């Protein structure tokens, strides 16, 4: 029966390759061999198994890997599993079995399916982010970040032990020194407004919230300030931008990175609140960031985000009920709904007025949810003549619109005129072009101590904690005082990996502590007679996927993340194929961790991909 019969041929060769370890990559290259590292985006092993979309990228990389072997290269082509994540946990909640079980089953399915396609992976380097032998090093990298501060002078991350401590802080004792260090670490805790879903008992990302409800299950979601772990990625914003330039990537991917970082140069301007509209004895000043200080004469009102800390003080008696109702309503919307999706602008007048610092004009202060608390200072000066959103808002609420910039060719102006041009109705700026006007007003503001030049970024610090079970535990302990309250002192776990406790059930607690808090024996620890509580948040799925390309290089090393010699040989990755959905955040987070590891001397190239 000598017709073409793949069902007979293919499994036989797959067995041959496995038995002969045909695609096992030796650590040492042969003389004259050049290295070629081909990386796939590793999959999340879902319960549904592979669909035919998955092998598209894998086939492309496999063809290249095989070609490079024929061409005599030392080829590294590995595969692994990005296996922490919500679906396995939700399945565990439903069936009350450990997520490890479903994860193992799903990995087995994915592996069988991938192997049936004849990909030439070196399976001896397989990694699984949920394997304690792997996440030992995820936790280790976390501790590196925890132990590092960013020195803006040297433009690099340095050990926290090298952080200069001001004398007056040192004089107050070790607790103050500890606090001083904590606020500078690259991994730090802070209160931030988050999308909290009480029914699921967890924080959700903006993308997971639709119409004020969770994407999965349709449960109500509210904005709530919570103490969370964050990564100080903003400290690396300039390096993430500048070091992008020499890379041999497509311009579209570079642009996506630049847009996400969103560097903008401008000025921070101080507006005093008219004291006659405030409670007796109260004085408030509102700082705003603007990239167009040249349009200050056109600022006819101000808008604060509903979460701005001044809102309660600004709301006058007749307005306070409306203000409260509005704050309540916007707490149920995600950032995305508030900005990108909002078709009509909403807002409420606080009753208070601010004074425009350039001309002394009293302008009304509104709150509106198109201004985000986390963006800039959480407050804006509205220049409806020259900004789309401010214009729409002014039209909606009948607020004054003044034209202060006309086109450079002095043709008729069509408002809102968002482009640059020549200043008019702007006193001492009249007749200047936009860049000259910006320079003049910025200098004027600085001289009068009403403002300072500022660089602002759209990039926010990275929310790094999740109230879930199926993630890497933080290797940190909170010290308790005699009354069982946290002292604020944090102790680092002595031994890694810190593994997850087994729970009776995996249901969320409905509190921000997360399911790990249910494991009392695991949470409460005594060391040298001191009481500690383990951190009960877990890390986001990004943590394990940020650095998997490093572990493949030395996947079974128990003494180090990877042998430095091997890292030097294989890095950077030569070819990476992943979906466009990974071109922004995944890539940005990976680049950030890579740069920190570079500063720590772990890797010796600045970028993971050339």
């Amino acid at each position, binding site marked *: 029966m*000598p*017709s*073409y019969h*793949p*069902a007979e*041929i*293919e499994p036989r*060769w*797959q067995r*041959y*390759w496995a038995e*002969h370890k*045909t*695609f096992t990559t030796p650590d040492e290259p042969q003389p004259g061999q050049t290295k070629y590292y081909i990386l796939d985006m590793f999959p999340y092993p879902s319960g*549904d*198994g*592979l*669909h*035919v*979309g*998955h*092998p*598209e*990228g894998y*086939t*492309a990389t*496999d*063809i*290249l890997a*095989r*070609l490079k*072997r*024929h*061409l*005599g290269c030392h080829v590294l082509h590995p595969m692994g599993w990005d296996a922490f994540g919500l679906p396995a946990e939700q399945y565990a909640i439903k069936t009350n079995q450990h997520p490890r079980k479903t994860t193992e089953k799903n990995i087995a399915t994915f592996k069988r*399916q991938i192997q*049936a*396609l*004849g990909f*030439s992976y070196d399976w001896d380097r397989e990694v699984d982010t949920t394997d304690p032998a792997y996440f030992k090093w995820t936790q280790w990298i976390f501790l590196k970040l925890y132990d590092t501060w960013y020195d803006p002078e040297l433009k690099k991350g340095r050990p926290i032990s090298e952080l200069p401590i001001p004398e007056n802080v040192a004089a107050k004792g070790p607790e103050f020194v500890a606090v001083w260090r904590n606020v500078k670490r690259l991994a730090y805790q802070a209160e931030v407004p988050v999308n909290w879903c009480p029914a699921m008992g967890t924080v959700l990302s903006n993308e997971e919230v639709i119409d004020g409800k969770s994407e999965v299950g349709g449960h109500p979601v509210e904005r709530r300030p919570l103490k969370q772990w964050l990564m100080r990625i903003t400290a690396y914003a300039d390096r993430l931008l500048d070091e992008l330039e020499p890379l041999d990537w497509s311009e579209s991917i570079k642009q996506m990175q630049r847009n996400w970082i969103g560097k903008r140069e401008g000025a921070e301007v101080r507006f005093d609140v008219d004291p006659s509209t405030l409670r007796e004895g109260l004085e408030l000043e509102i700082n705003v960031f603007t990239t167009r200080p040249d349009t200050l004469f056109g600022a006819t009102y101000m808008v604060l985000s509903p979460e701005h800390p001044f809102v309660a003080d600004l709301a006058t008696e007749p307005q306070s009920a409306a203000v409260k109702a509005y704050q309540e309503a916007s707490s149920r919307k995600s950032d995305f709904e508030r900005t990108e999706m909002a078709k009509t602008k909403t807002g409420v007048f606080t009753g208070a007025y601010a004074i425009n610092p350039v001309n002394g004009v009293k302008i009304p202060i509104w709150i509106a949810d198109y201004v985000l608390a986390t963006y800039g200072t959480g407050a804006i000066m509205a220049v409806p003549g020259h900004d789309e959103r401010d214009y729409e808002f002014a039209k909606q609420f009948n607020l004054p619109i003044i034209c202060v910039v006309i086109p450079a060719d002095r043709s008729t102006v069509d408002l809102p005129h968002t482009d640059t041009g020549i200043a008019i109705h702007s006193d001492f700026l009249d007749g200047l072009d936009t860049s000259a006007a910006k320079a003049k007003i910025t200098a004027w503001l600085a001289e009068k101590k009403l403002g300072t030049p500022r660089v602002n970024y759209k990039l926010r610090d990275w929310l790094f904690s999740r109230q879930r079970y199926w993630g890497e535990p933080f290797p940190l302990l909170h010290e308790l005082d005699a009354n069982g309250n946290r002292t604020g002192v944090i102790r680092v776990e002595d031994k890694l990996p810190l593994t997850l406790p087994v729970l009776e059930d995996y249901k969320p607690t409905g509190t921000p502590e997360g399911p790990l808090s249910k494991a009392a024996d695991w949470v409460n620890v005594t060391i040298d007679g001191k009481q500690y509580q383990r951190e009960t948040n877990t890390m986001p799925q990004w943590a394990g996927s940020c650095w998997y390309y490093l572990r493949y290089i030395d996947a079974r090393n128990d003494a180090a993340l990877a042998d430095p010699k091997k890292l030097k040989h294989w890095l950077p990755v030569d070819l990476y*194929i992943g*979906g466009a959905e990974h071109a922004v955040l995944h890539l940005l987070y990976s680049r950030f961790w890579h740069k920190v590891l570079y500063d720590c001397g772990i890797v010796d190239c600045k970028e993971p991909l050339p």
Partner: protein
Amino acid sequence: MILGEDNQKMSKSRGNVINPDEVIREYGADALRLYEMFMGPLEAVKPWQMNGVEGVYRFLARVWRLAIDHEAETVTLNAKMVDAAPSGEVLREMHRTIRKVTEDTESLRFNTAISAMMEFTNLLTKSEERPREAVTMLVRLLSPYAPHLAEELWSLLGNAKTLAYEPWPAYDPELTKSDTIEVPVQINGKLKGVIAVEANIEKDALEAAAKADAKIAEMLKGKVVKKAIVVPKKLVNFVIG
């Protein structure tokens, strides 16, 4: 990105998910791999079509039959395979195919590399005598794309070791040049220029190439071509008023 057969993103709720296991059972992993790469550039969004898999499966079966006698009782090499070295068109096409597959694969243009291998297969299928070297060359080029079939044929062609680390074939640049000839172009019977074209160019394409020549185009500008006399390989003559 690959969409479902209904041109929608694959999702469980739409019921349009295609499981690779089924495709492999029906057509094999090599056909699935080849089809996914033949669908178009990686960055393009394209719908799945099962008859497309069928098409590449038939191509792989043709490759099989180049080397294997499918009418024999047991696996036997095809008697049409001869030890004589490739020559003439087969030799030139062999070197052109190596060049095309090498260059296209390195720049991730997998679909055009596959097309080149298909064309070469058709040429060998048509030929009465198939130089063994040419068939072996096709197997080597196919190795990154359809590794199971390539290993199997490589082994049946008498090689003991895996194909995975065999050196990649080189091509002779001289042999990859296509044959070009020079054709005179006349206007009203007077020689106005000479164009270089491929030897086997079609009549219409030859006329178009003559019109596209910068010098000729300038001379024809604003004129009405009453008649074009085109003699392939020999001459183009434009009659103008």
